[in-house]
């Protein structure tokens, strides 16, 4: 992921994504997903372009972007580690495990380590409730986590 994208590049790539998806019924979420996949976050510069092309107000587009937990307004670390905080994982010691991960990384949820290696995010259910506690690292799922397993995960993102 290139973190130094110029505003002009953002504009051009946003326009081309909109061009591909505009014909869908209800195109805004697919467009935002694609923009986030492209840049790693939804850049502010993209919002007025989306608003103009979809004939929406900037407030409407901002409202949608800020409503959904998935959309970020800034880049993440090189890795994204999502820990499940929901009930089934709680019942298997998920809270203690989350504290351990935070201590190992030295950050809280929604933060990125200073070296830019990893962003830690909470997630409410990955549907891995019978193999709890569960986590997702860069889209890969991990279940039956224990202290050793999270240590390995943390070592992996730090490598």
């Amino acid at each position, binding site marked *: 992921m290139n973190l130094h994208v110029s505003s002009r590049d953002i504009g051009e790539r946003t326009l081309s994504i909109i061009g591909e998806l505009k014909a869908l*019924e*209800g*195109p*805004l*979420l*697919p467009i*935002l*997903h694609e923009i986030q996949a492209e840049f790693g976050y939804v850049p502010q510069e993209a919002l007025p372009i989306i608003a103009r092309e*979809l004939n929406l107000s900037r407030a*409407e587009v901002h*409202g*949608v972007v800020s*409503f*959904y*937990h*998935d*959309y970020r307004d800034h880049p993440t670390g090189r890795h994204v580690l999502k820990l499940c905080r*929901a*009930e*089934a*994982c*709680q*019942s*298997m010691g998920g809270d203690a495990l989350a504290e351990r991960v935070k201590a190992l990384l030295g950050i809280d949820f929604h933060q990125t380590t200073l070296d830019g290696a990893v962003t830690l995010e909470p*997630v*409410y*259910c*990955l*549907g*891995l*409730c*019978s*193999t*709890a506690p*569960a986590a*997702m690292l860069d*889209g*890969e*799922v*991990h*279940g*039956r986590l224990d202290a050793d397993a999270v240590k390995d995960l943390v070592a992996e993102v730090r490598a």
Partner: protein
Amino acid sequence: MTVTIFVPRDAAALAVGADRVAKAIEKEIAARGIDARVVRNGSRGMLWLEPLVEVRTDHGRIAYGPVKPSDVVSLFDAGFLNGSAHPLCHGPTQDIPYYASQTRLTFSRCGVTDPLSIEDYRQYRGLTGLEKAIAMTPADIVKEVTDSGLRGRGGAGFPTGIKWKTVMDAAGPQKYIVCNADEGDSATFADRMIMEGDPFVLIEGMAIAGIATGATKGYVYIRSEYPHAIAIMDEAIRLARAEKILGPSVLGSAYAFDMEVRSGAGAYVCGEETSLLNSLEGKRGIVRAKPPLPALQGFLGRPTVVNNVMSLASIPVILDRGAAFYKDFGMGRSRGTIPIQIAGNVKHGGLYEIAFGLTLGQIVNEIGGGTASGRPVKAVQVGGPLGAYFPVSLFDTPFDYEAFAAKDGLIGHAGITVFDDTVDMLKQARFAMEFCAIESCGKCTPCRIGSTRGVETADKIAQGIELEKNKALLADLCNTMKFGSLCALGGFTPYPVMSAMNHFPNDFSPAPMVEAAE
């Protein structure tokens, strides 16, 4: 003859190393020059045994699990390709008691077939429901679904046939089938499992819904937390289109139906049907007031069926075997089968499809085998984050919509989370409020503000501050949320909170704070 080895590709199996096991097996096959192939099937639902590797033999499929990559060499050495004994062997998969005692109607193929093989799908009675539907009138299809007694499996339990009839009778140039696959409740994964393990059954169910109601376009709204389900559904739709199961002429008939996958964006409230429709339209996932019903003014203001994955995936078997067959299972007004998801601190966690009517105690103790930790069960949450916590004293409650409602609980999407005696129920009540505060769409004040006040009040109770007053306040907040919220998020958050408070009063009476002795 080529030996077939099955290694699941279900996300729960992947989470415990199924890909690495498959790789190790491929490596051994190559190294030993054996004539064998690996099929990546769905999960059988016995998740404590995952990764569950199966080998097809003359004596049926033999199960081995849970298999670690380091077990693979010893499996080959023991002759597992012939179904030979091994410490991890469980004998024929069909005969494992957990599996053998189920009634698998909706999940009949899940874990058995290659999820992306239409050939497999047809071989196991796939598409027969759709073929029968094409030969029927739409009104007869709707009647069949109504007669089956199928009720919305998403949680609300509304009769599916009545919803379909409303859309069938509605006039409009374009109608839609929207599948709610925003399965956000903790302890639920049935939707994920069927989409990953038997995606064509959902496609078939949606096509039948389209034919019955006159809808020609369908959407599956899948939560973004399920990337594997999204990928498999996308591929299955592409294959179904190539086979003319979807398209301008469904299986060569005069009916047109096509569909696509849409990904959610991490908002729990979008599992509520009207908020899902707003999200699908590209808006904030704010709940809409009803009426108008989505059946009349749904997606883009047009007549829309919004059904849960499980409801739609149950349609093919109903059309194939008939309403009477399906209705024969179950109790009272809860007809057919329900895939119960047993999760959390439980020994035998997994998916268990059975007719309605088992008691909660049977599910937790006999099928689930009690806690994984070996400690006594303290509480069981039924129905996800908006479901009530049941104490052991209510274990005689039968699994049935009305029976659970009578005990101030709900079945919801049939997920069950087991907690052992280390759980602090005040903490769970606080979490229910916290979750509601994080996920509230903001439309209704009791939900938006009440949940935050609820967290604060729970904290005060935990600190022993004015206990009686704050417990009364928490109950009052719950009452306001229950009756003052449009949807189930604000309306049902009181279930876990009040059930925790009523059934586990000791956890809500912490010892008064004692000054720390210096």
